[in-house]
């Protein structure tokens, strides 16, 4: 059992970004204290630990903060090198590939998904959904090339890119439910559809992946709050 100074994670159960370091810590068998933030009110600890962005997740390792979900995941991999599997691939080219797709997911694909909720009118909604589907098709292709027939992007075990994409599955399912569409369609993206099942069933993921129904309820709650409140800036 890895024990290297006290480990805390500031986060919130609905956040896909918070799930990322949780999975990384689980893979490494590191015990940590989960400090749940209350929705709508940022704790003093969060504001002190992440003064630049004021966002979750924040990892506190022996009271030293690490911020930004993928930076935290790499940190966990670096800080506990001999525990559990390697999260990042060992070959520099494979690492660059994993980082590339993780950046694509955060900078292009995830915003296209949140774009669906923001789309006004049928046409805009369809265009937004098409964008997400296009992205999934790119990722399906990437999965084929990177996994090389193995169960995960990371090979035999869950790795960096699995974590980057997998944590968004909950919100993807909520999007499907709320729009009455199937995006992770076995007919269109068979590789990813099966990968998603394996990912969600993994021991490191099971306990931290929120149930779709619970997330959908939460989504309705925040959407209602945003519609009620005047536009904050």
């Amino acid at each position, binding site marked *: 059992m890895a024990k290297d100074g006290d480990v805390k994670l500031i986060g919130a159960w609905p956040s896909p970004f918070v799930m990322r370091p949780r999975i990384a810590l689980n893979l490494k068998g590191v015990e940590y204290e989960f400090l749940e933030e209350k929705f709508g009110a940022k704790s003093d600890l969060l504001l002190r630990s992440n003064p630049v962005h004021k966002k979750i997740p924040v990892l506190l390792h022996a009271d030293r903060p690490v911020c*930004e979900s993928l*930076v935290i995941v790499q940190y966990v991999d670096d800080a506990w090198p001999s525990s559990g599997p390697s999260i990042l691939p060992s070959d*520099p*080219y494979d690492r*660059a590939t994993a980082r*590339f797709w993780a950046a*694509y997911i955060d900078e292009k694909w995830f915003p296209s998904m949140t774009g669906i909720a923001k789309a006004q009118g049928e046409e805009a909604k369809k265009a937004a959904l098409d964008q997400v589907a296009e992205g999934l098709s790119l990722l399906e292709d990437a999965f084929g090339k990177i996994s090389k027939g193995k169960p995960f992007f990371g090979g035999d075990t869950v790795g960096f890119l699995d974590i980057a994409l997998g944590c968004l599955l909950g919100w993807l399912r909520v999007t499907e439910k709320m729009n009455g569409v199937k995006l992770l369609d076995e007919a269109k993206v068979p590789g990813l559809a099966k990968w998603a099942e394996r990912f969600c069933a993994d021991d490191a993921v099971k306990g931290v992946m929120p149930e779709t129904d619970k997330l959908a309820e939460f989504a309705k709650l925040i959407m209602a709050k945003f519609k009620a409140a005047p536009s904050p800036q």
Partner: protein
Amino acid sequence: MAEEVILLDFWPSPFGMRAKIALREKGVDFDLREEDLSSKSPLLLEKNPVHKKVPVLVHNGKPVCESLIIVQYIDETWGHESPLLPSHPYERARARFWADYMDKKISVGGVVWAPTGEAQEAAKKEFIECLKVLEGELGDKAYFGGERFGYVDVSLIPFYSWFYAVETSANLSIMEECPKLVGWAKRCMQRESVAMSLPDQYKVYDFMLEVRKKRRAQ
């Protein structure tokens, strides 16, 4: 084994400069190919089909895209005796955090291509705030990582080539606002890898004027 290293670049791009600095820091021989972004080469479109952007590093035919990913790849592939990223996990995380901060927050384009005076004022404010935060992080250190030039310095210094263009656009003196940061920049410019990779600030300014002329004509 013959090693082939090509860098697809566009000379005013700060992102391309990051890759050039890293390659030169490691003493890697590379074939620098200038792209005409209005008419992208078949090689660029083939090697970066997702984004179709520069820089792209092509190592023995295999492409690496996205400047920070390229810099990390260069660091992990060559010159292990002189690493750009720190060796201690916590320091590495800090370095990654600050490079990520730059990519999320610095927008030179927001200032120089601002459509209105109002937009420019807002962009100028944000730009200076961002530089001040970075200056705070630098503190009294010689470089962001301490005594040695490293990853965060490589990631930030290219923007120095745009300082004159930003200052004249927005009527601002970066020296007045962030003297320590300018001091750091001049220190970095003394390194051959940096001096060779950054274009002259006046050349960048001229480029900016040309682009503005073209945009007005459209």
